[in-house]
């Protein structure tokens, strides 16, 4: 009896429910991905989905595995920052789809500071954060003062900043290719220090301080949102703008500050990718980088909790990297994008799922009570029902 009660309380526990629903979303997403692979070519589908799931574990030797894990971690850090940006804003009732644009702003000014002004890494990082914050604040100000939906303005800014970044970074690009100059040769001081972390990952130089810093940011955001007055005010504004205003909170200012913080997080995310030398910005790219959008997947998969987001970001990045490893002459690598977008879609049903789960638990416990009670109590129950009518 005791055991059963415990099981029920576990099922009712919100964090357990969040993890359960996320796992169900992942399982369904992978299942659909597997079916698509089967349709394309049934022979290697099992192998392919295994590769996507295992990612670095599918490498043959231990050093190669660690190196691949390092690469995945290096890209998880920026993804986590974008996810935190979206998570933070969502908690305040704002859908920060503009994270992609704020990320571009961070890349633009962070790289420009590194390559044109030869700044050290921490200055570049600050500039990137500032650039992202400014872009976020533009969205916020438009929302607060001009009633422009932050989703629409965010999307417009994504495209504006894409072209702006291409234009700006065109000045510091490698003359022979569309990519910006390599930091390792142009300005070593702008590379985020590895602090010995690279030794653990088969000397993978892209494993830097960025990874522990990103995790620290996740904890910081969690603390701000759930333990401080500032976070409480922001959340109150998100729940009910009018009530927050009535309680003496500056609701307009809160909206702008929220999006500015979100922007700073996304801007730092860009710095965490481009200042590790993992890759360069291509000045001819014509689509908004996917990092900001994958951040949405990571946020919702992480159950809208900063700590959950850490694991979700790693998972999303891991299947994306895994997708790049499958046999490209048979399967398109975008299959991972397909899986993660299906996961986001399914996350929309999470509320309904939780509702159904709680309903099911409640009904179960009611039945048990009914079977336990004596006839007298049943009568009383009936009487109360009659009263309801």
């Amino acid at each position, binding site marked *: 009896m005791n055991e059963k009660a415990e099981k029920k309380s576990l099922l009712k526990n919100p964090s357990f429910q969040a993890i359960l629903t996320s796992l169900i979303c992942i399982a369904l997403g992978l299942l659909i991905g597997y079916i*698509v692979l089967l349709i*394309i070519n049934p022979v290697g589908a099992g192998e392919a989905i295994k590769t996507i799931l295992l990612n670095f574990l599918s490498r043959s030797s231990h050093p190669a595995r660690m190196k691949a894990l390092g690469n995945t971690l290096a890209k998880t850090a920026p993804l986590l920052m974008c996810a935190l940006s979206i998570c933070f804003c969502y908690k305040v009732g704002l*859908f920060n*789809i503009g994270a992609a644009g704020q990320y571009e702003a961070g890349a633009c000014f962070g790289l420009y500071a590194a390559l044109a002004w030869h700044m050290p890494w921490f200055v570049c990082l600050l500039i990137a954060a500032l650039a992202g914050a400014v872009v976020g604040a533009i969205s916020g100000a*438009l929302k607060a003062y*001009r*009633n*422009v*939906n932050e*989703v*629409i*303005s965010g*999307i*417009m*800014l*994504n*495209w*504006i900043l894409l*072209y*702006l970044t*291409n*234009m700006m970074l065109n000045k510091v690009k490698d003359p022979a290719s569309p990519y910006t100059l390599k930091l390792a040769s142009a300005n070593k001081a702008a590379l985020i220090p590895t602090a010995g972390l690279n030794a653990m990952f088969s000397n993978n130089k892209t494993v830097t301080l960025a990874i522990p810093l990103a995790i620290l940011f996740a904890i910081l955001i969690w603390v701000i949102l759930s333990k401080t007055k500032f976070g409480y005010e922001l959340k109150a504004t998100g729940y009910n703008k009018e009530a927050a205003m009535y309680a003496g909170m500056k609701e307009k200012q809160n909206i702008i500050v929220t999006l500015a913080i979100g922007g700073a997080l996304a801007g730092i995310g860009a710095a965490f990718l481009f200042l590790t030398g993992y890759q360069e910005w291509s000045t001819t790219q*014509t*689509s*908004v980088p996917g990092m900001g*959008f994958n951040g*949405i*997947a990571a946020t*919702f998969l992480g159950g809208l909790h900063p700590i959950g987001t850490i694991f979700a970001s790693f998972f999303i990045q891991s299947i994306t990297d895994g997708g790049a490893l499958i046999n*490209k*002459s*048979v*399967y*398109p690598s*975008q*299959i991972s*994008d*397909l899986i*993660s*977008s*299906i996961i*986001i*879609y399914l*996350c*929309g*049903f999470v*509320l*309904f799922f939780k509702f159904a789960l709680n309903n099911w638990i409640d009904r179960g416990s009611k039945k048990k009570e009914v079977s336990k009670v004596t006839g007298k109590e049943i009568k009383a129950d009936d009487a109360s029902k009659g009263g309801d009518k």
Partner: protein
Amino acid sequence: MLLLVQYTIIFASVLCLVALGGCFSEHSGVINLGLEGIMVMGALGGAVTMFLLPSDSSKIVIVLATTLAAVIIGVIYSCLLAVASINFKADQTLIGTAMNLLATAAATVFVRAMNTSLNPDNVSSSIQYIHEKKAFLKYIGKFEFNWFMLMAIVLLIVSYFVLYKTKFGLRLQACGENPQAADSVGINVYAMRWAGVLISGFLGGLGGIVYITAGVSEWKFEMGVAGFGFLALAVMIFGQWRPTKIALAALLFGMFRALSNVYTGIGFLAALHMPSTVYNMLPYIISLIVLAFTSKNSRAPKAEGIPYDKGMR
């Protein structure tokens, strides 16, 4: 200059169609952020049809089959939004975003798989339709008339008529303004919202195929539709959710989009020596500024974005 007019009209047709789609959906009470994805899917359906049709098909067959395929795929894809947001009361912003990502990923996977199965060395994500595209064009002097332009005008008039002059249209709008009141007089709110979303799928899918046949004869599906669905949403907001104003807004936005294609051919613009990226940015910058000035007294349907719950009064 003629080229500018021609591009303006074709881009305006796209924006007008898609914005009308958004208009129907929002009047029924559902925010359709997935228009971008619906466009991609419509474009995919149309492009694949053009690719698969035998090359000796008559022009009328090509036009009808392509349009029909785009529309059908668009409607089917919009069901994803309808099911989630109407029946399961999901967050409409999240579902719309997911649909946009899903459409680009699915289209890329589909086209690459198709290309690879036909030719193992071909791993590109583009479809060519140089020959088939000619079926849509008719030259009037030097002006390249496109059948889609006519379709856009007809659908604009039909939309206006349906929204304001029919029982269906007025009921649809009631569901977006006050669904509880609509329900109390016997209107099935869920059915009306489904209708609104499906109509937006119809128009969005059509807009998608028009967009990828405007000016180019090959499409790389990795690119999606480059934010055009969102531009259409801006057109809809600027047009105050009304078909007539939407048409005018579409012309304005279409012109700015057309400028980025043809500015080199216009004397004084070419003389300014501005980088082409400036022209690429222009439509988005303009729409942001325009939105900043028009959103304050917005005429958005009052109940849009709020899932309808029968139990809530």
